[in-house]
């Protein structure tokens, strides 16, 4: 797969994975809220029309219907844009899914600012922060199409609530077919000693670009992919902080409450070192092509490299 497809949006991988695993897991059912063409659950619908349920533009009902299906022994994937699945339906997810710890999977597509032209109302930079506050919620934010497919199967095989975040924007395939995904395990993408870049989602690609830029200046950056934001791979985060002495987190999400927040919470207790956060600052998004917005909000490789140098300067 990796040698034929160079780029893929993780939402594409989500839809394909649901259709693929629908054959393997007979109790897999999929719900959508009138966005099946965009979330790509339409691929599943085509393959398994009897196990696909359109709830109409009614996300709150969808999440609670998923609860009832989970109670009935099914594994429901409830899908919508991140803004609506995690945002509008936060309370249904918290009280309906989280509190009773039901086996509901929430597929939030169109996460972050790379939604692009639709602009601020649809660019969800808060979903990871919201989901992190729910006890027992697992949060998966895959970095590419390969990891997205594996994350879907891992979520199927894990009993309990899982929030999966997928993107609209096609990004580089980073992993090959030998890649093994495990919930709760980060991946050391590249070794380094001067600064540790801890990235998630499409920012992993940008972090690797930053690493090359820094290498040209003689700076050695470690790069870690954190696909499971909760529970966080604390051992890997701490090991990188100890080795490099400073950390830069990167996410297509608010700098408040997401991966950066999670890493700071861990390191402040277990290995206090300077941490700088790359993400969307405390502002709403705006319309524009995804590629341009990545630079506009300082999420590109060059911006990450600059932040890394600032982090290194903070080391004693």
């Amino acid at each position, binding site marked *: 797969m990796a040698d034929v497809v160079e780029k893929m949006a993780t939402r594409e991988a989500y839809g394909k994975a649901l259709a693929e695993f629908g054959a393997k897991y007979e109790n897999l059912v999929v719900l959508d809220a009138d966005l099946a063409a965009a979330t790509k659950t339409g691929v599943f619908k085509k393959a398994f029309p009897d196990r696909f349920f359109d709830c109409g533009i009614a996300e709150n*009902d969808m999440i609670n219907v998923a609860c*009832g299906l989970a*109670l009935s022994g099914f594994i429901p994937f409830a899908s919508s844009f991140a803004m609506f699945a995690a945002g509008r339906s936060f309370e249904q997810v918290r*009280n309906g899914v989280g509190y*009773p710890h039901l086996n509901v999977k929430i597929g939030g597509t169109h996460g972050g600012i790379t939604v692009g032209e639709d602009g601020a109302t649809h660019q969800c930079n808060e979903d990871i922060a919201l989901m992190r506050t729910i006890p027992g919620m697992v949060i998966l934010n895959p970095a590419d199409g390969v990891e997205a497919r594996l994350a879907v199967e891992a979520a199927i095989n894990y009993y309990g609530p899982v929030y999966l975040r997928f993107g609209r924007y096609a990004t580089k395939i980073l992993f090959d077919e030998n890649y093994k995904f495990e919930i709760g395990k980060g991946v050391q993408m590249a070794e380094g000693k001067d600064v540790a870049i801890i990235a998630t989602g499409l920012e992993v690609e940008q972090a690797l670009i930053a690493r090359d830029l820094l290498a040209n200046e003689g700076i050695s950056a470690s790069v870690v992919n954190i696909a499971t934001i909760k529970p966080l791979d604390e051992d890997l985060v701490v090991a990188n902080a100890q080795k490099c002495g400073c950390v830069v987190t990167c996410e297509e999400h608010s700098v408040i409450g997401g991966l950066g927040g999670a890493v700071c919470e861990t390191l402040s207790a277990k290995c206090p070192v300077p941490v700088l956060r790359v993400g969307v600052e405390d502002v709403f998004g705006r319309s524009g092509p995804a590629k341009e917005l990545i630079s506009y909000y300082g999420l590109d490789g060059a911006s990450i490299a600059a932040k890394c140098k600032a982090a290194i300067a903070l080391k004693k």
Partner: protein
Amino acid sequence: MDQQLKAKLGEFARQVRIGIIESTFQAKSGHPGGSLSIADIFSYLYNVEMNIDPKDPKMENRDRFVLSKGHTAPALYSTLANRGFFPVEDLKTLRKTDSYLQGHPDMKHIPGVDMSSGSLGQGVAVANGLALGAKLKGADYRVYAIMGDGESEEGECWEAAMFAAHYKLDNLCVILDSNGLQIDGPIADVIGPAPHDEKYRAFGWNVIDADAHDFDSLEKAFAAARACKGKPSIIIAHSLKGKGVSFMEGSVGWHGKAPNEDEYKQALAELGVNA
């Protein structure tokens, strides 16, 4: 309905009401008004209508129940206790820090509770999922949910109403406790969600009226719900909030307040308990 069964259901409902008063008095908080209004409905549901087994609360083919108006947990707990799911004595621990009887239903720790609830507007949507799940499995169990008339002001109720009709969930029976009162006053004064019958009919439901305190009426209503094919059913159960305790009846103030010592004694006396 034969008189012997009617007497049994009446006595069970009386015990449920005693448990509601006892538990909210001991807790010094809770929601007696809306609990008392559904005591007779619970008596019918758990003694006649629903297929349940207190010795096997997770029985695969049991009928499912969701208390969408979760704040009336005292009614559900008292029903489950009197039906043998757990000791009646435990009702006295309601809302205490070390008790499993949480202020609102908690399916993780309370035998007989099929779904946690408490946040209004969500229960019928969960019941939709349960009813759809039963159909997908080819199972013939039925799904019941009690919601409040004030609760119907939550928009999600109407999302759920559309879903149930669209997917023809005729194994779903919702009971709307039409007691006419909510925290801020009579529902007609607060925001006026009525008429429920016309609204649900327009949403494609089989709508049945019933007297929430008359077992003959409830029997007919549940039979009509069971007989209806191709549509979900809703029983608009006309009730009296606080039913069975004179000073709580029809009173907005008893929505979420526990009786004090004197009120507790009077309430129990009215329910035929010699304190």
